[in-house]
């Protein structure tokens, strides 16, 4: 089936034309293509028309382009149907490019990207997470934008799992957590982009697949936004790191389930990161952009070179030719197909007018970054590759990029309507409260946050840790001041896998609600969002059902609220023979802060101020921290609606204009009790409730609620303001001294703080 071609390097012809279905399947497996028989047959048909057999490099190239990772073949149908229909006049570019581009002010645009780096991180947490950061930075950079903030939502198995209970080939969650955090730290801190938001979540279903999502925000002058598109007569210049055997088959590896053999088979699919190549690469690319020396810019990510040149040329209606032997290599003896699909890090492709080539090469030389001419744009829509003078590739780019699209069958999970709700009052309120506070999903994430430089670039106005110095509490969203004006960007990332696990639809709607709450809490107007949809194997109808329900909910909330989804990523196959992850639709929300001097923080400011609860509390405990720590079953995941969320959000933002609001915190994991505890911890102040609060009021996780601190003299007017709009607002208590008192129980702030601070560090150490 494989015939070596008589050339002075490794090149094989693959006999597709005479292959039957069984052989096609075998070829796909042996070459690591991860294409199914139908897809292979389509390729066979194409080459039959050409009257020849493909070379290995051509098949490998198609496997990259048609992978789940690159062409979204399982998800596109549903995303288009439910999610991509919200528009806004301030969107400059959504979904089409590597990152979303949104208007910030007259002169500037902000850029948003969010991606997963799950499979590599499960195999090699440090390198996987580091290169995840590297990749997301390039996605933002290739739009011509300066990256200004990083975000990293992370998901792991429970930290107390015993080593002997780990499935074969699975790494301990504590090892993965430490490795991933170190990878993000060492890469993010070195490139000098602050990591300002994120989350860390633990659940048993992440045991065999940890989830590492990475997001990035950038800022650019509108006139400098660069498309991933070449122009007639352009020269292609490859810049950045050398190309090696690391990261071969990364995308096909990410488009299949992991199993116990993944470690040995896929180690080579994990790339190696070099932040000290990336840091000057950012400077040099931005200098080229600022001087207007390139027509197009695209990053080399999944699929490497094979997913870049053809697409840049085709976007302009052209083709291209490539001199593959010009690509600078890390090692000798690489076959052409390996060079073509290698995912080695820190590489970018520029399309440049011939007259500017010397200027561009000079800028990269100044920074000691390799820059090489590797091809040029041609008139016909065909991509040809030459290696040492031999033509080794000739395919229509439109065929290569016409990946399949599936409308996969799905079964929607029926929320357990018939199940009995077990939720009952706790026998000991304080014990339950302490258990909630010390749960790693609730507890202080200081151990993680401190390891990231969240201040570099000197633009982080509202920081991820807020309150008295060295004993801060969690905030709701970070606020960045990206330009010389006082306008800011609020950034948050959210998802609640306990809720999506029980009910993908309402769990996802709750996630959207929480993202909006967080943005509103710091006094920002929700502006856009990106999604990273992490799910199991889409070929299984019940997994596909989770995906479809989740996307439906997201589309319903986004269109009703009027918030556009500007960028996204789908990561399937987060599944092993042992288990699948819970549905994890991670959202990255961006809000506009009109004046950063009016941003609001989460911790209580002054004793004697009144504390108001905004929103409605129902007995909704599905996926709650309360049900988890009390081992009580609950299926009623909190409900919401886009109209309700919008009405409350608008009223909240209006109230911030009309009243002096001292602190605001959204109510999420652990309910009102945990929200108030966090507000107390940040300032070492207490809370005194006006009435006895019962367990539903304290621990329910109903959506669309906030806790607000106002002057007592404003209390009546503040509540009337909401009531007059038909919304709920209730005076729940006062900021007090050193004791948190809910009527049903009380506790010293010091005691609460201690368990909250040690919830994560009892596993990680400090």
């Amino acid at each position, binding site marked *: 089936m494989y015939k070596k071609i008589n050339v002075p390097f490794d090149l094989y012809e693959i006999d597709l034309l005479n292959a039957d279905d069984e052989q096609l399947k075998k070829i796909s497996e042996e070459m690591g293509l991860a294409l199914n028989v139908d897809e292979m047959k389509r390729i066979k048909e194409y080459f039959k028309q050409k009257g020849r057999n493909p070379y290995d490099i051509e098949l490998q190239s198609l496997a990259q382009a048609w992978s789940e990772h690159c062409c979204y073949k399982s998800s596109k149908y549903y995303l288009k149907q439910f999610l991509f229909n919200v528009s806004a006049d301030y969107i400059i570019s959504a979904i089409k490019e590597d990152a979303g581009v949104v208007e910030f002010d007259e002169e500037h645009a902000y850029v948003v990207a969010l991606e997963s780096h799950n499979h590599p991180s499960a195999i090699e947490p440090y390198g996987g997470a580091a290169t995840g950061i590297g990749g997301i930075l390039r996605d933002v950079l290739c739009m011509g934008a300066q990256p200004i903030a990083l975000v990293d939502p992370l998901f792991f198995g429970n930290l107390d799992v015993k080593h002997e209970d780990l499935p074969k080939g699975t790494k301990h969650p504590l090892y993965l957590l430490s490795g991933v955090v170190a990878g993000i730290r060492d890469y993010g801190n070195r490139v000098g982009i602050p990591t300002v938001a994120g989350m860390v979540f633990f659940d048993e279903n992440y045991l065999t697949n940890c989830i590492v999502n990475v997001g990035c925000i950038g800022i650019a002058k509108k006139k400098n936004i660069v498309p991933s598109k070449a122009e007639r007569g352009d020269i292609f210049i490859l810049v950045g790191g050398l190309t090696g055997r690391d990261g071969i088959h990364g995308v096909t590896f990410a488009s299949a389930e992991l199993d116990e053999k993944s470690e040995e088979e896929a180690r080579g699919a994990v790339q190696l990161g070099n932040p000290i190549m990336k840091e000057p690469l950012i400077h040099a690319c931005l200098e080229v952009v600022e001087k207007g020396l390139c027509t197009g810019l695209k990053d080399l990510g999944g699929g490497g070179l094979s997913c870049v040149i053809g697409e840049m040329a085709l976007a302009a209606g052209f083709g291209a030719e490539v001199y593959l032997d010009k690509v600078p290599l890390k090692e000798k003896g690489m076959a052409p197909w390996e060079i073509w699909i290698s995912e080695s890090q820190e590489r970018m492709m520029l399309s440049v007018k011939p007259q500017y080539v010397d200027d561009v090469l000079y800028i990269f030389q100044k920074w000691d970054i390799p820059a090489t001419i590797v091809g040029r744009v041609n008139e016909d829509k065909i991509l040809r590759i030459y290696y040492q003078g031999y033509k080794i590739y000739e395919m229509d780019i439109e065929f290569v990029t016409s990946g399949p699209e599936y409308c996969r069958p799905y079964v929607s999970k029926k929320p357990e309507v018939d199940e009995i709700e077990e939720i009952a009052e706790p026998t000991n309120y304080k014990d339950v409260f302490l258990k909630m506070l010390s749960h790693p999903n609730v507890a202080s994430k200081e151990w993680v946050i401190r390891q*990231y*430089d969240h201040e570099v670039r000197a633009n982080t106005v509202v920081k991820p840790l807020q309150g008295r*110095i060295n004993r801060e509490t969690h905030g709701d969203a970070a606020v960045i*001041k990206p330009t010389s004006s006082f306008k800011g960007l609020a950034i948050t990332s959210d998802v609640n896998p306990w809720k999506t696990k029980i009910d993908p639809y309402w769990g996802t709607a709750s996630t959207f609600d929480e993202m909006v709450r967080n943005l509103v809490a710091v006094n920002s107007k929700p502006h856009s969002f990106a999604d990273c949809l992490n799910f199991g194997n889409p070929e299984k109808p019940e997994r596909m059902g989770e995906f479809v329900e989740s996307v439906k909910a997201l589309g319903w909330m986004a269109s009703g609220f009027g918030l556009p989804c500007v960028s996204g990523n789908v990561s399937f196959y987060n599944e092993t023979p042992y288990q699948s992850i819970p549905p994890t639709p991670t959202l990255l929300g961006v809000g506009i802060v009109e004046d950063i001097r009016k941003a609001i923080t989460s911790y209580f400011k002054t004793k004697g101020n009144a504390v108001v609860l905004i929103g409605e509390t129902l007995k909704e405990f599905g996926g709650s921290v309360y049900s988890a720590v009390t081992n009580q079953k609950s299926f009623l995941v909190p409900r919401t609606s886009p109209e309700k969320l919008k009405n409350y959000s608008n009223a909240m933002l209006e109230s911030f204009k009309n009243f002096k609001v001292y602190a605001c915190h959204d109510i999420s994991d652990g309910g009102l009790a945990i929200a108030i505890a966090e507000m107390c911890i940040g300032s070492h102040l207490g809370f005194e409730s006006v009435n006895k609060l019962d367990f539903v009021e304290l621990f329910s996780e109903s959506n669309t609620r906030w806790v607000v601190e106002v002057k007592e003299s404003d209390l009546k007017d503040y509540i009337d303001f909401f009531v007059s709009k038909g919304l709920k607002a209730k005076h729940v208590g006062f900021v007090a001294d050193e004791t948190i008192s809910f009527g049903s129980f009380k506790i010293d702030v010091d005691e609460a703080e201690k368990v909250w601070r040690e919830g994560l560090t009892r596993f990680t150490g*400090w």
Partner: protein
Amino acid sequence: MDVDEIKVAVLRIEGTNCEDETVLAFKNLGVFCEAVHLKQFYSDMIRDDEQRNITDYHCLVFPGGFSAGDYVRAGAIFSARTKSVLQKDIENFIKTGYPVLGICNGFQVLVELGALPGFDEDKPIAEKPEMALGVNESNRFECRPSFLKHENRGKCVFTRKLKKDVVMFPVAHAEGRVIFPMGKEDEFVEKLKENDQIVFRYVNDKGDYAGYPWNPNGSYYNIAGICNVKGNVFGLMPHPERVFWSYQHPDERSDEYGDGKAVFESVIEYLKRF
């Protein structure tokens, strides 16, 4: 010198990453300031319009970051490269009295270079480093606000306009622990005190000397920043450029200046009288 004559260079190589905000801090005060790649001082490949000379400037700054990745010892590569091409120039620069500032990684560079503690006025760059900035006691990178007590009696040209006793500059580093030669620690501290070379010491929120986390790295004698014997070379681990404005402080939301401004203001004032 008039303010508009003053020219400041923030030196950069691959991995320095705080140059933008450092340049901005100087520019905010009306002086000319630019980020200059080390190669612009010596390399043949640099085009004419981008070639620079140390004597073009009146103040040099080594900014924060991870120069060359800091995979060896923090600042070691940047200082070695600087020494190999600019040692004489920088020696003359310092001897003439022009100021040199090192922030965070820049402090590490100045220590590796032998410019700090800088006990010998006639030989402003020592042959080998006389102190070190070791790995934090917590053994990892930490980013946190820090309170600094200003203890300089007037020698350091970078803090003369500082009005507050205690300021807040954030730290963000993995290697910031001031270490002196073993057995000679107290001797070094005495000498620094005597010469008025101690500039900032870590204190807690009440202004008292305290241990971790107030002293975020375990520095000897809580030292956060020192100057050379002449007072014109200053290095510190905390980042004044990150608190130039008050809105960069935790929970201060006005458009007033922040604690860090005084550092830049002081050196400009010094150069005005130069």
